[in-house]
C-alpha cells in the first residue's frame, strides 16, 4: 500500500467515524436522555426487519411503540446505549478536536513569535514552557478542572474542558514550531524578500508559516487522540461532562458495576468505540511521519 493510499484510507475512515458522531441526531433512534424504565440493562434487541421503520421522527430508523430497538442494549435507566454512544461521540471526539486546535493555535502563535523575534520573548516562552512541562499533565488537568466551579451547565462544561485541556498542551508544538521558524528565518529566500523591503508580517505569512505545516499536521495527529483520552478520563472521574449528557467517559463510569458487567457486556461499548478512533489517528500519524524518517 502506497503512502497516498494509506493516507486517504485513514482520512476516509476517520471522516466516517466523525460523521457518525456529527449526525447523531439523525442516526440515533432515541434522544440521549430518553429513559425506558421498564427495560433496564436490556441486551441488544434482535432486529426484525418487518418491524423496523425508516425515516421516522426525523431519525434514520426506529420501531413503533411500545417496541424498542436497542442496537447495543440499554443501561441502568433503560437508555439506548447505541444512541448515547453516538451522542457521546460528539462530545468526546469534538472536545479532543477543538482542544487540539486550541493547543496548536497557541503553539503556532507562541512558537512563531519566539522563533522569529528571539531575544527575551524567546527566552520567556521557553522558560515558561519548561515550567508547564515540569508539571505532570494529568495532575495539572485535574487540578485545573477541579479548581473551577464543579457544577456548571453542559455547554459551559464543554467549553471549559476544551480550554483547560487545550491550554495545557501547547508547549511541545510551540517548541517544534519554534525550531522550524528559527531555521526558516535564516533561509536565503527570506533574506532576499527582506531585501525587497518585505515586512515581518509578510515574511511570516508567505514564507515561514507554510514551512510549519508539516509539524502542525503531525502534532495534530498526536494531540487529538491524547485529548480525546483526556476528556474521557475527566468525564469518567466526574470532572467533565455530566449527566444526562453522555460522553464516552461518563458512560464508562456507569460500567463499573463489575459483578454484573460480564452479563452487561454492551456497557463497554464506549471504550470499544475508542479503539477504531485511536487506530485511525495512529495510521494517520504513521503516514504523515514516515516520509520524514525515510528522508533522514
Amino acid at each position, binding site marked *: 500500500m502506497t503512502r497516498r493510499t494509506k493516507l486517504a484510507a485513514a482520512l476516509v475512515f476517520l471522516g466516517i467515524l466523525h460523521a457518525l458522531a456529527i449526525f447523531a441526531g439523525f442516526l440515533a433512534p432515541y434522544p440521549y436522555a430518553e429513559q425506558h424504565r421498564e427495560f433496564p440493562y436490556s441486551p441488544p434487541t434482535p432486529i426484525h426487519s418487518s418491524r423496523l421503520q425508516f425515516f421516522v421522527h426525523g431519525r434514520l430508523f426506529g420501531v413503533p411503540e411500545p417496541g424498542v430497538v436497542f442496537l447495543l442494549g440499554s443501561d441502568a435507566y433503560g437508555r439506548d446505549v447505541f444512541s448515547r454512544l453516538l451522542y457521546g461521540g460528539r462530545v468526546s471526539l469534538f472536545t479532543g478536536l477543538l482542544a487540539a486546535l486550541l493547543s496548536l493555535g497557541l503553539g503556532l502563535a507562541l512558537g512563531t513569535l519566539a522563533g522569529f523575534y528571539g531575544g527575551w520573548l524567546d527566552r520567556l516562552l521557553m522558560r515558561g514552557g*519548561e*515550567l508547564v*512541562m*515540569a*508539571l*505532570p*499533565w*494529568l*495532575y*495539572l488537568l*485535574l*487540578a*485545573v478542572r*477541579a*479548581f*473551577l*466551579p464543579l457544577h456548571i451547565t453542559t455547554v459551559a462544561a464543554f467549553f471549559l474542558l476544551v480550554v483547560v485541556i487545550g491550554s495545557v498542551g501547547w508547549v511541545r508544538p510551540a517548541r517544534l514550531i519554534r525550531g522550524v521558524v528559527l531555521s526558516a528565518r535564516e533561509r536565503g529566500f527570506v533574506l532576499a524578500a527582506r531585501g525587497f523591503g518585505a515586512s515581518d508580517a509578510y515574511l511570516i505569512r508567505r514564507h515561514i508559516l507554510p514551512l510549519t505545516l508539516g509539524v502542525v499536521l503531525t502534532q495534530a495527529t498526536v494531540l487529538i487522540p491524547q485529548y480525546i*483520552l483526556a476528556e*474521557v*478520563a475527566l468525564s*469518567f*472521574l466526574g470532572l467533565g461532562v455530566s449527566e444526562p449528557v453522555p460522553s464516552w467517559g461518563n458512560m*464508562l463510569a456507569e*460500567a*463499573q458495576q*463489575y*459483578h454484573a*458487567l*460480564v452479563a452487561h457486556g454492551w456497557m*463497554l461499548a464506549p*471504550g*470499544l468505540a*475508542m*479503539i*477504531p478512533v*485511536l*487506530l485511525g489517528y*495512529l*495510521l494517520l500519524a504513521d503516514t504523515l511521519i514516515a516520509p520524514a*524518517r525515510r528522508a*533522514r
Partner: protein
Amino acid sequence: MRYIGRRLLHGLLLLVAVSLLSFVFADLAPGDYFSQFLTDPTVSPETVAALRAHSGLDRPFPVRYAAWVASVLRGDFGYSLAFNSPVGPLLWTRVRATLLLTGTATLLAWLIALPLGIWNATVRGTWCDSLSQLLLSFLLSIPDLLLAIVFLMLAVETGYFPAGGMVSPGWSSLSAPRRVCDVAWHLALPVAVLVLGMLPILVRHVRASMAEAIDSPFALSARAQGIPRRRLLFRHLLPAAANPLVSLAGVSLGTLLSASLLIEVVMGWPGLGPLFLEAIMARDFALVLAVVMLSASFLVIGNLLADILLYRLDPRIRIK
C-alpha cells in the same frame, strides 16, 4: 563538571518556580477546605472565618508562601485538613504504594521492550515485523481505562485475582514470604494494565533508535569488516542507539509518580492518585500542593538524570 553543576542549578530553579506556580494556582481556586461549611446552615460564617484564621488561611500570600517554604525545608509538609493528619506521613504511605506499582510496571515494560524492539529492528521489513507492528498498534489504540475495567471485570468474575486494594485483610498476620506473595497477587492486574499501556510506545522508540543505528554508515562499515553479530550489537549498535533511549528512560523515571493516576483510581490501588483526587474534591490545599510538588520534582529529577547521563555517555555533547 560545570555542565552538571549548571543543570543542577537549573533544576533547582525550576522546582522553585514550580512551587511558586502551584502555590499561586492553588490559591486562585475559589474557596478552600472550609468553603463546604458555608452551605451548611448550622455553621455560622463567623465560625468559618475563625476556622480559617486558626489554620492560617487568611494570611496574605507572600507570608503563607514563605511559611510553607520554611516548613518544607524543615521536613514538615503541612497539615491536611481533609484527612486530619500531617501531610508527610499521609504522603509517604501512598507514595510507596505508587512507586511499587509504577516501578514494577516500568521495569517490566523496559525489560520486555528492549529485546522486543531490538529484535524488531533487526527483522525490519519481514512479515514478523509487520505482524508485530500491527499488534502493537492495536494495543496502543486500546485505552488504559478500558483495559483496567475489563481486567477488573475478569477478576471479579473468575476470582483469580483480587478486585482492588494492595493487601488482603489480615495481611499483617501473615509470614513474610506470604506477605510478599499477597502484595504481588494484588499487584498483578494493575501492573499488567500499565505494562500493556507502556509497551507499544517503548517498543516503537527502541525499534526506531536501533533501526537508525543499524542504518548508519559506521554500522554498515562495521558489518562490512565482518564483525560478529553479537559484538556488533552490544559494543557498537546499542551505544549508538542509547541517546534517545536515555532521554526516554529519564521520562519514564520522571513519570513514576504520575503515570498511574487513572489506573489507581479505577483499580482501587491505594496510591497517590486516589489521594490526589480526594484532596482536590475536598479543596485540601496543603495536600494538593504537596502532591503536585512531589510529582513535579520527580519529573524534573528524571529529566536531570537523563541529561547528566547523556552528558557522561555522549562525547559529542561535551564538545558542544
